[in-house]
């Protein structure tokens, strides 16, 4: 499923990140360990669209508006 965005990821699926938004938020994502080419797991998708992803043992909550701007391939 090419060219999807992170907010579309269902609970339990893995996604590969193709493109992060630009600006400061991009740097913050990279620092938290989320980079283009990474595969992360969506462990929770809250009603309304807030996404919780897991990379290794690290859990990170991503707001809906930000998730919409992260381009991914849903695996």
């Amino acid at each position: 499923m090419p060219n999807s965005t992170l907010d579309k990821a269902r609970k339990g699926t893995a996604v590969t990140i193709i493109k992060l938004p630009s600006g400061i938020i991009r740097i913050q994502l990279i620092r938290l360990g989320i980079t283009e080419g990474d595969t992360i797991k969506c462990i929770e998708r809250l009603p309304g669209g807030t996404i919780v992803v897991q990379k290794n043992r690290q859990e990170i909550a991503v707001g809906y508006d930000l998730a919409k701007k992260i381009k991914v391939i849903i695996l």
Partner: protein
Amino acid sequence: MKSDNIINLNSENTKSLLPQETINETIKESIVLVGNPNVGKSCIFNFLSGMYVDVSNFPGTTVALTKSIYKGKNIFDTPGIYGVSSFNDEEKVAKKIILNSDIILNVVNALHLERDLFLTLQLIDMGKRVTLVLNFADELKKRKIRIDTAKLSELLGVEVIETSAVNKTGLDKLDSAIENAKIGNQQLDLHFILQQVMEKNIPQAEALLILEGDEETSSKYEIGVGTADEREKIYIGRRNRVNEIVDTVEYEDSKKGEIFNLLGRLSLNPLTGLPILAVILTLVYFFIGDFISQRIVDYTENVIGKGVFEYNVKSFVADYTPSRIDVEIFDTQENLVSQKSFSFSDGLSSLPVLQKEFENYSKQPGAVSEFNFTNPFVRLFFGEFGVITMTITYLLFLLTPLVIGFYFVMALLEDSGYLPRLATMLDRAFNKIGLNGRAVIPIMLGFGCITMANITTRLLGTEREKSIVTAILQFVIPCSAQLAVITVLLSGAGLKSLLIFIGVIFTVLITLSTILNKMLPGESSPLLIDLPLMRLPRISNVIKKTFYRSYGFMKEAGFWFFVGALAIGIFELTGILSVWQDILAPFTTHWLKLPKEAANAFVMGMVRRDFGAAGLFDMKLTVEQITVAIITITLFVPCIASFVVMLKERGWKEGFTIWFGTWITAFFIGGLVAQIII
């Protein structure tokens, strides 16, 4: 405790609050602890210096910098950061200290190597002498993860030690680890680019920051920052190297779920999270609403504050200045038993017989003495709303227990890892009003004290969010002092009143925040938050954190309560206050359909918000009038102390706009309800 120096940093001028002296001292010979949030930095700092500091679990609630002495060298603890730059106050503070340091003790959470090593590599790239402390090593064994520290040390080119700061294991290795701190391995390509900048006589650490686009550093040397591309190349290169290193050194034997993990998951989803929140709020209500604000505050404010402190101060003052003292005696059911009035035209001791009589009479159980000083200036400082007497009682005996209670609960929620999950669960709801989930923190604190919450708005990402939350706090959130009075009034008014009250306040909240969200330019920051592992809070940690925060709040805000009281005192002295009451009276009687005296209650609400509501106790009000009154008072202006702190935090223009806004809204909405239901 050898030495301490906690500096609270204000978001506007980090520079001026970081004293030059501190920076100069850093140049001498200094060790700095650096790490991501929640890595146990402060525990290690505590061990090295013998002094405890804040250990935070919610990324970025306070910016405090702590200094101590270790073996004749300065040692600094820095706020938790994910990287060195200037994205927020924490980073700005940490950056200044790191740039001037000699040895960096980089503390990392062994469970989150992949996240934490990013900062480690940046510190190594800065060319500083670094030692890596792998904390939470005990947790590794529990989770069946192995880290090849020898290999990690070889790859990074710096010493690596394993510790468990909470259990105090491995800490004996810190001494030699600090001595052995050394400059680590740098990637060749980055090294080459750095050399070009360093040729301009710029130290390596600052050269790196310039390449990474740090404008503060580049303007110091008057050269341009690296391009966005360059910065990204460095960041992605670093990220890839972290991933490679972690792949090489970390082995996972098996994955195991835990009960805390499950609880963490459950508190994220509204379906299960809202019941969990309801349980927590109920417990919080019993602790703060019942135990602290009823029992504790009742004792501290009335018995200690008014009965002992104010009585003695005022008696002392009455010895030197004319006064009339009215004493009333109440029985245990609070019925008036007897009363007497004493007049001293020239101080207590001028009439020794009467003084003796007054003392005997006023020291009976159930006695309440009211000192009326003739001299207006004495009244200003020692009268009923005296700058000295009332403010001290208010601050020490009413507010302090409440603030401690609230900070204690916050520390518990923070330390357990619940707070970031709550922020996540509520994120979408907050999005609708232009905020993200983190805004839950100042709003929760607002139910304790608006002044305290006004200061906490600093942790929000953008000015826009700070404005929205500040407005919500002043307009609709009732502080604990006010809530107590509202509860009493509502308990006599019934369910219908309660529903109208909640409905109106909620409608105002939604309307106000929607308008602000539409009107204010710019965009709010999205939620991006690291969810630490859920765990049992460590009580010693929570208590110490509560102490430091409460102390910090009193230090920062305490003074402004005196300023506020002085302002109100002067208004009273000059008659402005009664003019104000006269102006409000017609609005009160015709538009709000309340007794004329209710106007006094509103004006007194500016001194302390509960005064406003408490004034209504004595009036004979119908159920409908009570409903109108509590709506008006909740929406009405914040107390003078929170007003002053708001001006300081948000500036004059915004502060006054919000302040006048609350006047208009309170009277407009209150009146509208009155016209409909009365």
